[in-house]
């Protein structure tokens, strides 16, 4: 039985797809058979971040509508053995996603995989609700910014009421807070919410903190999830996050402003 983890946020553009790709990659690198599914029907992105856009033939909707089998639609990752991608449809509309269809697909994937990562679309409508519906755990991606935090709280409300675990009165979905695009320098100057404040407001367990990092754009340019860039702060922060998802106790990093050394101050060494 696979563990189903939804990566969700409410607000758009906060780093869900980046995080879903990075976490799926990290879990697979740790030896877990992992599939990452793009639920953003009509606006697929995950294939680009995973660098497999030219190998997309069939998609989630094709599978749901019986036009292709799972094994035809899933793309095997080039870099990591036990990692698969199930892309979203670019052309069909969201209504093609049905609850029964999603349940069926997740059911068959469950037999084969250890982890199923669902990359949710933005918003709190149908697409986002379907992405979270069957989840066992949720990674709530939040930027240190008011509208993102408010939307995360809306999402927490949905997780605790509109999901299968909620409807069936089962043990609630395990909620994790993932703060991304964190800039300790701006926190220090008082212009950015700090992580304790965000945690206090949302009152859920912090699973990771990803700093604002140039490595993320570089990774998406290349179509290589940032987890592979182990020189980078963001790459390391995602590895830490994956370890915590696996139940390990890993100290927090990258939450304090780096004291710049003399040389980097002279030559303006950017953050890696």
């Amino acid at each position, binding site marked *: 039985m696979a563990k189903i983890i939804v990566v969700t946020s409410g607000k758009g553009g906060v780093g869900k797809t980046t995080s879903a790709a990075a976490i799926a990659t990290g879990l697979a690198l740790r030896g877990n058979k992992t599939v990452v599914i793009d639920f953003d029907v009509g606006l697929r992105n995950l294939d680009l971040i995973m660098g497999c856009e030219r190998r997309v033939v069939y998609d989630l909707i094709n599978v749901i509508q019986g036009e292709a089998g799972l094994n035809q639609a899933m793309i095997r990752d080039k870099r990591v053995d036990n990692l698969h991608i199930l892309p979203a449809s670019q052309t069909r509309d969201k209504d093609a996603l049905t609850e029964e269809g999603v349940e069926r697909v997740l059911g068959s994937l469950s037999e084969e995989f250890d982890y199923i990562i669902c990359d949710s679309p933005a918003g709190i409508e149908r697409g986002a609700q379907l992405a979270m519906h069957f989840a066992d755990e949720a990674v709530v991606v939040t930027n240190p*910014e*008011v509208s993102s*935090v*408010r939307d995360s*709280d*809306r999402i927490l*409300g949905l997780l*605790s*009421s509109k999901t299968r675990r909620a409807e069936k009165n089962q043990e609630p979905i395990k909620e994790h807070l993932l703060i991304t695009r964190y800039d300790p320098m701006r*926190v220090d*100057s*008082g*212009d*950015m*919410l*700090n992580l304790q*404040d965000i945690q206090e*407001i*949302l009152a859920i367990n912090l699973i990771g903190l990803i700093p604002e990092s140039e490595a993320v754009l570089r990774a998406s340019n290349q179509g290589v999830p940032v987890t592979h860039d182990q020189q980078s702060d963001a790459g390391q922060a995602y590895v830490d996050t994956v370890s915590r998802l696996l139940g390990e106790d890993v100290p927090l990093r990258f939450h304090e402003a780096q004291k710049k050394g003399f040389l980097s101050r002279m030559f303006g060494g950017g953050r890696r």
Partner: protein
Amino acid sequence: MKLLDFLKRERKKSASVAKERLQIIVAHQRGQRGQPDYMPMLERELLEVIRRYVEVEQDAISISLDSEDDCSVLELNVTLPNRG
């Protein structure tokens, strides 16, 4: 120096203002969780009725539904403007 201090303090404020605003918003959102879907509509209509008699602001009214053992209590709070 004085000016710099002042500017610094001003800047300190933006994140803490954000925090205070969020605490209020989130408390409000959480208060509404698990309430029946008709509550916002009920609140709007009650406000309309009250406004036929008294001039009150949009936020002068708050309603909540509390469930106790065998009954639910609808609590309605209306702040009326000062007389005079």
